[in-house]
């Protein structure tokens, strides 16, 4: 898996993280690390481009929740926090979508996983990059 990070200017600056390759338990932490570095460099809005991701396991879903936590300034959970003890994201309330983290062009099988666990109710998904950038 490779990650390329672009800065795009919409109404606000948007960091576009373009992922190439499969996301599974072996590499999902790289996504979190890239988002953490971007956040430390000032990024506050992230668009995750999944158009070149042919496969994503639940590890990718975990990465997304952790990225949102990073964007909310809550830091990355330590290993002691455990895989199943993830908390945070308390700026979200039921029925509200995440304002500073959005998804671009997931492939059908990836979208299916997102939808199955209810993420599509909480995270905006776009198929057009300009529209996505303008939405922040």
């Amino acid at each position, binding site marked *: 898996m490779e990650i390329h990070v672009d800065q795009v200017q919409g109404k606000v600056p948007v960091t576009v993280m373009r992922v190439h390759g*499969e996301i*599974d338990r072996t590499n999902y932490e790289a996504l979190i690390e890239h988002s953490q570095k971007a956040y430390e460099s000032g990024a506050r809005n992230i668009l995750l481009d999944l158009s070149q991701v042919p496969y994503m396991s*639940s*590890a990718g879903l*975990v990465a997304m*929740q952790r990225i949102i936590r990073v964007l909310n300034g809550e830091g990355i959970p330590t290993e002691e926090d455990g895989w199943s003890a993830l908390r945070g994201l308390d*700026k979200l*309330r039921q029925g509200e979508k995440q304002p500073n983290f959005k998804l671009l062009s997931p492939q059908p*099988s990836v979208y299916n996983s997102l939808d199955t666990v209810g993420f599509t109710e*909480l995270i905006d998904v776009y198929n057009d990059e300009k529209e996505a950038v303008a939405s922040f």
Partner: protein
Amino acid sequence: MSQSDQAPPTLLTISANLKNLATIRSFVQEQMLAMGLEEEKTSALVLATDELATNIVIHGYKSQPGMIEIGVKRDGDSLLIILRDRAPVFDPNTAASPDTTAPLEKRPLGGMGVFLAKRASDEIRHRKRRGGGNDVTLIKKGLFAHDA
């Protein structure tokens, strides 16, 4: 029913290591495609296998050395994906399902992989192996109904 409907499965025996997940996915995918299944029908089952295998590595063997045996088999109009290990007994059906309607802040993430595996299949059958370990069979019905 033709003989091929009940042919013994080709087995992949591989060390329980996260680095082998891609090999496991490829194996399962190739077996299903060789049975004539269309690719879009296989993706959720590849995912389900990955999730169960990941659980075996992390929660079963706790990242200690061990082996996983994987087989893909047709049984009438159903597809069976079998995962065997020698890890402590664990039935994936006992994993708590996440509340997929809850706000993100109230969601623990454990069990999301098993949840995806359950949703991809009609049944996940578990039995203890003689001598220790688990025999988990993921069953998807009706996949071959079109040529029954």
